[in-house]
């Protein structure tokens, strides 16, 4: 398997990152990658948020690409709003979306 850069960026004001990280690691392992290779980074200040183009916690990127591209969302220290595939609002992304994003990155790497 080609290595992927998988990152989870989080902010302490939002309690969703432990669950997001657990679900991300589960998906990564399912796809035959090393779950411990996920890079976890705290975003602590507004300046950090700007520098990281961080639009909220949690943010998951695979090879630099956001698993749910945020469009023109402003950067800042806030919690991200995700929608599960059944339409529910959630503080964490749907694991199926995470899986699709990692799979797509693997395909791009393999191509």
């Amino acid at each position, binding site marked *: 398997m080609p290595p992927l850069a998988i990152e989870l960026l989080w902010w302490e004001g939002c309690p969703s990152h432990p669950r997001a990280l657990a679900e991300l690691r589960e998906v990564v392992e399912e796809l035959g990658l090393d779950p411990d290779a996920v890079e976890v980074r705290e975003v602590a200040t507004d300046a950090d948020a700007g520098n990281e183009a961080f639009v909220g916690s949690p943010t998951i990127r695979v090879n630099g690409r956001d698993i749910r591209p945020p469009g023109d969302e402003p950067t800042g220290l806030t919690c991200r709003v*995700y929608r599960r595939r059944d339409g529910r*609002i*959630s503080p964490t992304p749907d694991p199926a979306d995470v899986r699709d994003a990692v799979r797509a990155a693997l395909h791009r790497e393999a191509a």
Partner: protein
Amino acid sequence: MSVGIGEAAPDFVLADTDGDEQQLLVGAPATAIVFTCNHCPYALAWHDRLLDVARDYAPRGVRVVLVNPNDGERYPRDSPEASRERVREDGGWPAPYLRDETQEAARAYGARTTPDVFVLDSAGILRYRGAPDADHDEPAENAAWLRDALDAVLAGDQPLPAETDPVGCSIKWKPDG
């Protein structure tokens, strides 16, 4: 500063989304004060359940009040204008949505997150504080902890548990707050 279970809760007069002033405590047989906001996924996930509680308990005289304490300058989605627009787009809510501009109400209650629920009895004594139910991601939970607390208060009993951990986004305090 915060209010504990069994203690008298402070009263405040806050503006609703029409700009009209509303008192939190109006002698209802039970009152649920919910600190909440427009941008937090936890608040949004629980929102419909909270409005259902307001609808379902209105015939029993229960007053449900939603209060947004967040700094609307740093978080424009929580500005009074954004709140007004949100209520308007929904065609109105079955509970008033009040603005805690000075954040004094949130501080006095000791609110920590959005949402953070406080249930008071007819004398304004705090009887329950915490989350609406056990899982923000599960609509079938139906704000069960809040409903149980209201049922207990209406029956003249102390809700059990009296406290659960509030779950949600941290309140966005003003920098000089």
